[in-house]
């Protein structure tokens, strides 16, 4: 059912739409295949002899206005053409329905009329996807690249069509929804997040103000083939299959919050084009280009890479053979425990609490068998090399065996921290898209409905039993993906980080070498990630009697018992765990229980000197150290309490010398706090810390632009931390790049000033933030205190700060990140300080 069909000529859009330059608008007339002259409205930022032309194709029910920011920021040698499809935007209105096949043909005719004859990058959204991909298949000699944003070419068979579309399609509701009333139109602009201003929203609606201007919106909805018998089903299928052969560089930029084109459609496209680079913008929805502020920059960054040597460089380093040659001797991750199973089959590999002060002991032989049987059993359950398996199991022997079993198979283990919360866990799993999820009973309800097979952890024993009758799988290679872990999420949504086997093996080798680990060592793992590493190190691990997901539940007594249980020599704990041990030391009757510890490591978040001293007092014979690193590379440096004491005050937190094989450089900050400097080893220059090492992560997961920015220099990782290297080659960390204060006299890192505030009476914590415009910020010190800010307190702060301080503010608490509850959220604090100091309250 169609509404009244009123033909109308193409027109130019109103001249006052926000962000749209009227000089881009053109009307172009060309014959369609029926010989009828059709007039199109296109945005065309023409250039002489373009290096490449971007052909931008909108979907339903938007128009070329969607691409205005792409046109506005186009480089001088790139032509951008954004068409309004016939019947849409300000192009000619049609009297009959136009189906996919003809729309593909139409697009070819208008590009010919526009004399687009050089290389083309297609940029598409929504139903612009199938149309422009159809165009690409017909112009494969011209196609230079594909950039797809929230679109689809195929309805995955396992699911129904999106509810919004299904609703819009119901006859006669369709015409009613899409044509008579602009409901579909309004829903679409509402499908975007809050970033769309009312003015921009009105600009999206501008071509569709009357029902007779909206006929094509309705026709488009009807043209979605939901059944094989639909007139457009065949051609859509041709496109969907055809793109498997398109080997051009492809980028998929996605808003995962889209209720129409959800991750399911992204995954379908990724399956068709496995070489595609992908970036999912967490929080962005259907109109991803409106929701993701960095998308247009990311697009141009990718465009810039199309013709630069960088691309070739990366291809070389990602060539598996080249890597294996380079890596040479790194042994597989299971070598450590398999060797011990041969030499000391009955000694303890893993010791974990079994309740009432007893221990469950797993020997090297048992662990090796368990891993082997699980690996075989999991293959029997359909888990194969290249699959991703999320493991939501409490740290302990089961978790460890499952991880190594997956590794042997060549399946990628996805680890999510319970601290991310239900929403965070689901968000992380959606981005990592595991095919199977092994979960403890408590976690099972959380992981339903993610499109993965859910296996209860209680099944693991049975799976291992099944493994007895299954063959051993072929084992993973060094270049296979090993793990996806997530960043803390203290600065935005947690990011997935991918490591390959060789990178984890390198981490292991570095730790063994740096800490002189031998078979005689035994590890007390109060820090969950390291519990998994024990078997790879080939040393016994004990998990103290605590809730490992809640480090503060560790006690000195439990630590003492754990050390006793294996003759522990090494202890790893997060600052919260160490704090809990120091605070409960009175409960440890016999302090000599800790005497076998030769090394205590505080890791996972910055550890204060005072806390390290507390541990040193408790374990006087141990070397008390703390490594510096991050989810993307750990460790980078490490430093002992003794060194920290000897060094005294400095430009931040002393984290020590880079470990052997780790290169650290500084990229100096400019006056706006951007790390634009070339990588340098110069001493006493404040800049972003940049690291190169064999154990750096492989990449961020489905975050192409984040990865690209973090590896601006090929082979290096930009950490997002700022710091300085001192004359002795030691690294000092001054805070996060995003927390740098850009004063008129230069950038200032907050941590050094904050540390100097530690001596003020009744001040629990201090944060230094900047207020004012970038490059002209004033330093403001926010104190966590119940004291009143009087002139005496201000004078004390200024004399300690050793730099100009505009204002001192007091709060009873400082905002901290959700996950660690230890990192002060200086971004939030800076906003608060700016509001406070603007006055008027």
């Amino acid at each position, binding site marked *: 059912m169609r509404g009244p069909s009123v033909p109308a000529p193409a027109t130019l859009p109103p001249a006052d739409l926000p962000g749209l330059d009227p000089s881009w608008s053109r009307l172009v007339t060309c014959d369609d295949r029926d010989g009828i002259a059709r007039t199109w409205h296109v945005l065309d930022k023409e250039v002489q002899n373009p290096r490449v032309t971007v052909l931008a194709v909108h979907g339903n029910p938007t128009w070329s206005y969607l691409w205005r920011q792409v046109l506005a920021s186009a480089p001088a040698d790139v032509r951008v053409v954004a068409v309004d499809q016939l019947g849409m935007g300000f192009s000619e209105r049609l009297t009959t329905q136009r189906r996919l096949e003809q729309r593909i043909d139409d697009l070819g005719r208008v590009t010919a009329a526009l004399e687009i004859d050089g290389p083309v990058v297609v940029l598409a959204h929504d139903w612009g996807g199938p149309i422009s991909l159809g165009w690409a298949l017909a112009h494969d000699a011209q196609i230079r690249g594909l950039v797809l944003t929230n679109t689809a070419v195929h309805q995955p068979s396992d699911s129904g069509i999106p509810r919004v579309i299904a609703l819009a399609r119901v006859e006669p509701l369709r015409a009613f929804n899409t044509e008579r009333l602009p409901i579909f139109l309004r829903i679409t602009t509402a499908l975007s997040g809050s970033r769309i201003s009312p003015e921009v929203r009105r600009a999206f609606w501008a071509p569709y103000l009357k029902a007779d201007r909206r006929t094509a919106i309705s026709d488009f909805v009807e043209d979605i083939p939901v059944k094989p018998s639909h007139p457009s089903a065949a051609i859509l299928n041709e496109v969907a299959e055809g793109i498997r052969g398109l080997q051009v560089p492809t980028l998929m930029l996605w808003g995962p919050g889209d209720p129409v084109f959800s991750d399911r459609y992204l995954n379908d496209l990724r399956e068709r084009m496995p070489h595609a680079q992908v970036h999912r913008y967490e929080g962005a929805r259907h109109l991803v280009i409106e929701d993701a502020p960095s998308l247009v920059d990311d697009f141009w960054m990718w465009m810039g890479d199309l013709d630069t040597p960088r691309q070739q460089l990366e291809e070389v380093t990602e060539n598996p053979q080249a890597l294996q040659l380079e890596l040479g001797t790194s042994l597989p991750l299971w070598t450590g425990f398999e060797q011990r199973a041969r030499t000391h089959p009955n000694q303890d590999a893993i010791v974990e609490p079994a309740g009432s002060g007893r221990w469950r002991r797993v020997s090297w032989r048992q662990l090796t068998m368990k891993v082997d049987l699980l690996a075989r059993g999991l293959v029997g359950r359909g888990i194969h090399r290249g699959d991703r398996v999320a493991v939501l199991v409490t740290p302990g022997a089961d978790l460890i065996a499952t991880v190594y079993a997956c590794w042997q198979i060549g399946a990628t283990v996805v680890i999510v921290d319970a601290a991310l919360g239900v929403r965070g866990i689901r968000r992380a799993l959606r981005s990592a898209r595991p095919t199977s999820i092994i979960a403890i009973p408590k976690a099972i309800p959380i992981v339903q409905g993610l499109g993965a097979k859910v296996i209860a952890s209680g099944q693991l024993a049975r799976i291992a039993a099944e493994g007895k009758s299954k063959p051993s799988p072929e084992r993973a290679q060094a270049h296979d993906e090993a793990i996806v872990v997530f960043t803390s999420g203290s600065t935005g949504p947690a990011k997935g980080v991918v490591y390959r086997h060789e990178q984890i093996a390198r981490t292991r080798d570095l730790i063994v070498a740096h800490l002189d680990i031998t078979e005689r060592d035994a590890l007390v793992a109060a820090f969950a990630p390291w519990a998994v590493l024990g078997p790879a190190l080939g040393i016994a691990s004990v998990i103290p009697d605590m809730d490992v997901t809640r480090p503060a539940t560790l006690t000195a007594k439990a630590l003492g018992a754990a050390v006793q249980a294996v003759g522990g020599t090494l202890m790893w704990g997060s600052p919260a765990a160490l704090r809990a041990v120091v605070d409960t030391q009175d409960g440890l009757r016999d302090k000599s229980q800790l005497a076998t510890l030769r090394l205590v490591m505080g890791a996972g978040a910055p550890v204060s000197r005072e806390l390290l001293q507390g541990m040193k007092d408790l374990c006087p014979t141990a070397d008390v150290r703390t490594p510096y690193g991050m989810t993307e590379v750990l460790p980078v440096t490490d430093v002992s309490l003794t060194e920290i004491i000897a060094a005294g005050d400095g430009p931040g937190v002393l984290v020590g010398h880079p470990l052997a094989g780790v290169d650290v450089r500084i990229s100096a900050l400019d006056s706006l706090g951007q790390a634009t400097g070339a990588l340098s080893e110069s001493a006493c220059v404040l800049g972003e810390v940049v690291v190169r090492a064999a154990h750096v992560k492989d990449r961020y997961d489905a975050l192409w632009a984040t990865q690209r920015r973090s590896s601006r220099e090929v082979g290096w990782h930009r950490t997002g931390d700022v710091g300085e290297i001192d004359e002795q080659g030691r690294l000092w960390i001054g805070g996060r790049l995003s927390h740098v204060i850009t004063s008129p006299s230069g950038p200032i890192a907050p941590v050094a000033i904050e540390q100097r505030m530690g001596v003020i009476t009744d001040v629990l914590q201090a944060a230094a933030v900047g207020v004012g415009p970038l490059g002209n910020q004033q330093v403001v010190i926010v104190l966590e205190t119940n004291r009143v800010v009087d002139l005496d307190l201000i004078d004390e702060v200024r004399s300690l700060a050793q730099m100009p301080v505009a204002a001192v503010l007091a709060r009873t608490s400082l905002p901290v990140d959700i996950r660690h509850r230890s990192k002060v959220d200086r971004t939030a604090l800076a906003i608060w300080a700016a509001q406070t100091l603007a006055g*008027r309250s």
Partner: protein
Amino acid sequence: MKVLVTGGRGLLGSATVAELRRRGHEVTTFQRNPSGNLQEILGDVTDASAVQRAVAGNEAVVHLAARVSIAGAWEDFIAANVDGTSNVVNACRTEGVKRLVHVSSPSVAHAGEPLVGVGAQPADPENVRGHYARSKAMAEIIALNANSPELAVTAIRPHLVWGPGDTQLVERIIDRARSGRLFLIGNGQSLIDTTYVDNAADALACAVEHCPGGRAFVVSNGEPRTVAEIVARIAQAGGSKVRGRVPYPVAFAAGKVIERVWGDRPSDPPITTFLAEQLSTAHWFDQRETQLALHWVPKVSLDEGFRLLDRAYRN
């Protein structure tokens, strides 16, 4: 250089005369009442011929004379600030003066919203608050429009100048603190720039010597502080304390009422909407451009300035 300073009697005027003389310039002053200066011409800026006689023979003019009070009739502001500036500009033109440093005020671009770390924005007579700011905005436009290859005109907007001997800010705060009438408006945490008088005088002398024509510059110490801190430090120098706080809406409403009933009385009212806004919204500025263009940096820090103030009140 032969320099005429109009309005050479006030806090900033006398400091500027002294600084110019220290730099070896030959300074004449022009004001209504005798100042005790060796070289002075008495007269009113509203008197065009008097202005012309005073300007004659000088290479540069620093135009400081202005009506600065918060209250008063609009006609008086027009006469002193707008007509007075026109007279000075015309005299500079006809007498072949090379440089004019017009002393303006940051309030000429302050429409009431917080100004946070910004540069000197264009004078905006339409939207600024109060007779003083509006007339000074008009004056600045007149002065800068006169900039030409023959006459370089620089507008300098010193922000909240204070120092020992200040009858405007410092005296009022100390008087009120001593009589227990000193209240802070709002939370007292709006961040504002101030300028120690010697730095402002120094900046004006630099402006005479370098005179980057056609532009306006805000001059301040570049050390913004909360209103609460500034008031407390000044009160402390006078040996007193702040008594309490008045919420901003109350102060603003009081200002409205007082403005209406105060009318054209010559003395300043205790509060006006202008003052309420000035003291309860942030206004601090980007000094990088100013310092570069004037070849000037503030020599006396705020801390040093407060020490000098303290000493002045002890003696």
